[in-house]
């Protein structure tokens, strides 16, 4: 009975089932015609197709980035299908019109789409593959002038808002994956909270990839007008698949003067099997721009995906603006994550806080990559970064790549980092009190992540904690 930490057992991915639904899927391949066809299928306004085409042409001239600390085989972009919609009657008038198969899927996922979330006061914009199929509490939100709908609907009903803000934070030329997304994005969510309005409920979206070999290109745009407040929750699950699936989402947050946007993610996409086969490639661009006195706060719990490449960032444009990034990233088996944030201090007295908790188990590899940039006019800028890694077992890895550039000598930038190993003695202590190995690990890890969990809305925090347990299940004996 020597060290038990290395004993691995495994549990099949809980959400690894496939829904039997007819999909309207485009043939594989990407060209200007495909881009036009996507736009046409969605009856988009003219400016949109032009924007997509510009993005596509730009993308052709770009190279896939290989600086992240992850490895994977070449992606054949021509072998991917860029559009897949569940075949249902459109448009959907009410939840009752939603394909019952879909509703069953949500039930299996434990997503209380209609009743429970309603009771809990959460409006849900559920995304199945690429097209939104159900939206609740629209009327309640409409009373406050809040727009919460699918991206497609926003393009039809509020094209002026989309045109004004789309690409204002993440331009289509930003990076390879953002350009690809800009060209082919299928759907996503759109939120607009008017001046001075505090959104009375947490807005919540669930994503799920279903069709085989279909790239998923979500686009989310959230605008909080002056003095507005909104908290947005994003949660993802995906069924088990044997081939890798590319996911390249873009999220743009616009916080105007004095506005606050809180964006929370729990990401639990299929991570691949123990050998590292299958699993989602999660290459995401998330960025917010904060005007004067505005605040943008990212909280993420990343437990899924084979590869995660993601840096939710804040451009602290206005004076006194605040940026926050709270992150838990867990990798097990052969998962790889390269995640972190960028805080770009442009305005005076701007403040940013970064708390990153990386947990590596199995043969997982976890990298924190962060950039804190203080521009010359950002007098009085402050950053505090705390970056902690926890190792479970001996075959996993933790890496940190902090980049700090300070162009104003009144700035105060603090960076703290630590690496710890989950101790056999801690696990034994908890077992001696009657807890199982899984409970013990989940408790120790939750304790480690406490500072991040407390940033999540309550029910989300519990979900996240449970997910951590599931993800690390089998990483100790």
């Amino acid at each position, binding site marked *: 009975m020597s060290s038990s930490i290395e004993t691995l057992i495994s549990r099949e991915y809980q959400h690894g089932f496939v829904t039997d639904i007819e999909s309207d899927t485009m043939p594989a391949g990407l060209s200007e015609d495909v881009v036009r066809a996507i736009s046409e299928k969605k009856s988009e306004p003219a400016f949109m197709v032009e924007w997509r085409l510009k993005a596509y042409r730009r993308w052709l001239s770009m190279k896939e980035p290989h600086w992240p600390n992850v490895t994977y085989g070449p992606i054949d972009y021509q072998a991917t299908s860029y559009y897949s919609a569940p075949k249902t009657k459109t448009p959907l008038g009410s939840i009752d019109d939603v394909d019952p198969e879909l509703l069953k899927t949500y039930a299996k996922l434990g997503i209380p789409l209609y009743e429970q979330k309603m009771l809990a006061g959460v409006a849900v914009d559920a995304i199945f593959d690429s097209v939104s199929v159900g939206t609740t509490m629209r009327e309640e939100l409409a009373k406050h002038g809040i727009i919460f709908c699918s991206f497609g609907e926003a393009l039809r009903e509020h094209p002026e808002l989309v045109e004004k803000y789309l690409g204002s934070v993440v331009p289509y030329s930003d990076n390879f994956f953002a350009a690809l997304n800009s060209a082919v994005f299928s759907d996503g969510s759109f939120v607009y909270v008017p001046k001075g309005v505090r959104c009375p409920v947490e807005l919540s979206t669930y994503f799920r990839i279903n069709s085989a070999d279909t790239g998923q290109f979500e686009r989310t745009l959230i605008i909080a007008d002056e003095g507005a407040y909104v908290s947005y929750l994003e949660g993802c699950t995906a069924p088990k698949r044997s081939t890798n699936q590319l996911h390249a989402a873009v999220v743009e947050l616009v916080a105007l003067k004095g506005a606050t946007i809180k964006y929370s993610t729990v990401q639990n996409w299929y991570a691949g099997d123990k050998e590292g086969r299958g699993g989602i490639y999660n290459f995401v661009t998330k960025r917010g721009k904060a005007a004067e006195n505005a605040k943008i706060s990212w909280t993420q719990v990343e437990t899924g995906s084979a590869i995660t490449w993601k840096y939710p960032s804040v451009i602290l444009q206005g004076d006194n603006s605040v940026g926050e990034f709270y992150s838990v990233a867990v990798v097990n088996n052969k998962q790889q994550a390269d995640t972190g944030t960028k805080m770009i201090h442009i305005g005076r007295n701007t403040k940013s806080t970064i708390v990153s908790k990386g947990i590596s188990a199995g043969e997982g590899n976890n990298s924190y990559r962060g950039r804190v940039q203080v521009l010359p006019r950002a007098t009085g800028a402050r950053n505090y970064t705390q970056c902690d890694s926890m190792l479970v077992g001996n075959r996993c890895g933790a890496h940190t790549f902090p980049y700090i550039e300070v162009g104003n000598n009144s700035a105060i930038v603090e960076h703290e980092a630590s690496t710890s190993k989950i101790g056999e003695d801690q696990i034994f202590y908890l077992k*001696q*009190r009657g807890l*199982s190995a899984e409970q013990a690990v989940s408790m*120790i890890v939750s304790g480690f992540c406490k500072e991040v969990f407390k940033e999540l809305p309550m029910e989300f925090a519990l979900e996240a904690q449970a997910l951590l347990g599931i993800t690390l299940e089998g990483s100790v004996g």
Partner: protein
Amino acid sequence: MSLIEIKDLHATVSDKEILKGIDLTVDAGEIHAVMGPNGSGKSTLAQVLAGNPAYEVTGGSVTYDGKDLLALPPEERAQHGIFLAFQYPVEIPGVSNAYFLRAAYNEVRKAHGEEEVDPLEFADFMEEKLALVDMDASMLNRSVNQGFSGGEKKRNEILQMAVLQPRLAILDETESGLDIDALRIVADGVNKLKRPDNATIVVTHYQRLLNYIVPDFVHVLVNGRIAKSGGKELALELEDKGYDWVTSGAPVGAGAA
């Protein structure tokens, strides 16, 4: 039937033999003291009984409550009523003492087919337990053992014992780090928790503790074996004459009478 029966127990750590044939029988309602020089294997015995995987059992048997104890994983031993108050309690940063205690309490309840308790019920339950070890409720909101003083850690162990109400409690040098007042409080707690159907093994270096927790039997562990056993007066004799007295003489009959 004895609560626990240890027969010719051998155990190694890092391939070094530490326990070299322990025989010890404890009946319900008894308190046994285990004494012995540093490094003689007292903590090893405690850890082996609790199922620490760092120690390898290489021979012998342990029957607990009619079951083969060595075949059970540590959490099941705990659920069946084995409790170890650690010589060096472990810190769990970020996990509140209250949350931890309730999780442990619920696991033990579940194992007995009882309902889990919610945080409110548990808070009521804890009031009396805190009083038992004279601990402030604020300790419940702190991370498990983190930043606790040596004495607070030991008190926290006894608090856990009070919550889990074990059938066999093994206290490994619980007195170390305690001031005189705390010693009395802890000993009082242990005495109050004594019932006809449970038993306690007290590992200690000091006769002093045994003035408060009066043992039915005292065993002297030397070099991985029980070299001498006797009644509570043996502790006084040891204090007087030192361990040399035991090691130089021929080993007397091992195990409790």
